[in-house]
């Protein structure tokens, strides 16, 4: 797992994907920070975290698009799958590499915290609550992105499908509201990402939501392993 993790971390920066992701995250979070937080004279960064949901939704598929699709296309997966490592090590190595990059990108909020601290009071509990909420959301989204990357050989297709799927997940709340059957509406609602995430930015640290995000992360990593395993039996 370590070897794959280190290779992916290097690959993020040799291919430029890492820079694009970090720059994209810094640009939009900076924009929301300066306009929504500094501009409105608040010391609470929650509105910025709320807005970042949509940005993360488009950035994460860029981060994950190549992870497995390129391996298949360039036949480098033959090297990985015939090496004495398990499928889960391969998948998790890639997963944690992407997650690490996400954490690095997200940690820019601590620079914003310093800026706020210079002219006011930072509410650390809110900040950390938001920070971890976004981390858990990222953990779930990256697992979904990685799964989609395992399904195709084309990194562009992987990115576009990833964005589409994550966007549908975002829309789930509004879709759920229009479902007339109550049972169905509640089921869809309970799977929705946005409302769960937004709760955190409103100051509610809901443990069940954390469990939900982590379960999604676990489940999709498991699916990815299954896809790789299934391909060998094809």
């Amino acid at each position, binding site marked *: 797992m*370590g*070897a*794959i993790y*280190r*290779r992916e971390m*290097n*690959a993020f920066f*040799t*291919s430029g994907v890492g820079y694009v992701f970090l720059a994209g995250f810094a640009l939009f979070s900076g924009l929301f920070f300066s306009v929504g937080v500094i501009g409105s004279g608040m010391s609470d960064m929650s509105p910025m975290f709320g807005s970042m949901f949509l940005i993360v939704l488009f950035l994460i598929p860029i981060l994950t698009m190549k992870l497995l699709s390129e391996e298949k296309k*360039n*036949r*480098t*997966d*033959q*090297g*990985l*799958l*015939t*090496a*004495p*490592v*398990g499928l889960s090590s391969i998948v998790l190595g890639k997963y944690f590499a992407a997650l690490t990059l996400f954490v690095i990108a997200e940690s820019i909020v601590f620079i914003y915290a310093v800026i706020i601290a210079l002219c006011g009071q930072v509410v650390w509990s809110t900040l950390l609550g938001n920070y971890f909420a976004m981390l858990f959301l990222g953990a779930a989204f990256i697992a979904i992105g990685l799964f989609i990357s395992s399904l195709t050989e084309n990194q562009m297709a992987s990115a576009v499908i990833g964005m589409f799927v994550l966007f549908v997940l975002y829309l789930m709340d509004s879709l759920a509201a229009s479902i007339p059957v109550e049972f169905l509406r509640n089921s869809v609602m309970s799977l929705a990402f946005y409302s769960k995430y937004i709760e955190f930015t409103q100051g509610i640290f809901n443990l069940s939501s954390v469990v939900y995000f982590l379960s999604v992360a676990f489940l999709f990593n498991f699916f990815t392993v299954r896809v790789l395993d299934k391909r*060998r*039996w*094809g």
Partner: protein
Amino acid sequence: MIEVRNLVKRYGDKKAVNNISFTVEKGEILGFLGPNGAGKSTTMNMLTGYISSTSGQILINGVDILENPIEAKSNIGYLPEIPPLYVDMTVDGYLNFMYDLKKCKLSRKAHLKEICDLCKISHVRERLIRNLSKGYKQRVGLAQALINNPPVLILDEPTVGLDPNQIIEIRTLIKKLGKNHTVILSSHILPEIQAVCDRIIIINKGVVAADGTANEIANKLTNEHKMTIRIEGTSHTAADKQEITNALKSLGGIKYVRADMEREKGIYDYDIEADEKTDVRRAVNALCREKGWNILMLQLSDMTLEDIFLKITSGDIAAVQERISDEAKDAVAGMEMIFGDDKEEGEE
């Protein structure tokens, strides 16, 4: 070292590999020979655990590849048809990655240096793989397979796309490796297999068509009943040709006589095919003595590996003869192209 039992790989209705069994002993260099699409790569991919078999068993060093894949794979170095190279890495970065991936315990610096020296890539270690030529990429692929010194090396068409010098280098290297490793290599290039391998398995349409050394396979197929004889007649004219042909045909046991080209002035070669297991050489000799002809040459038609391959993969000897006549047709066609053909011009 490697034991394969009743291996089957099915893709839908099609059996890509159909009930293949063989064993490879330690230190053997085994050549997998077959036309494109015969199931060579599929078999190799199953041997290395890249794909799973539909049924059957593969034991690498006594370890089942499906039951205990990680242990089995640690015994194998694999160079697939397309080397699994990350083109945006340097050679050194890539080899270090593979070293870590294979959880190699040997001294990193010394081991990688040894491999790079062996594969002659020491001077390109800092370069990006993307910028290497095909030959160097192939060598990096081979180097990657050698990491961790696996007892079994599986090389899928290792010389494809290389220039003749590189082919010779890689072949020499494989022979060298064969001293300490069990090697399976596949190819559809016959001389290569013949030059490198101790033993050959010919695969055709997913089944083992022949298994043995080149000579063993040849001996099974050739008989002493086909030969080419150059006979000098008395008159040195075309009349000789007719007379000798007829005389040969009248000998007992001869099925087929064909007068070939005029090799020396007024002297012809005769291709003879006798009934199987009938040695007609003495009878021919006696005939010539009686008629006062001289035998200037007698050559049994040894089958080349190419003939064997064609015979096996196409199912019968007719193909070998067809190939020979095809070559003649090609030659005729070539001449027509050069000298022009009235008919074709007329059609236009």
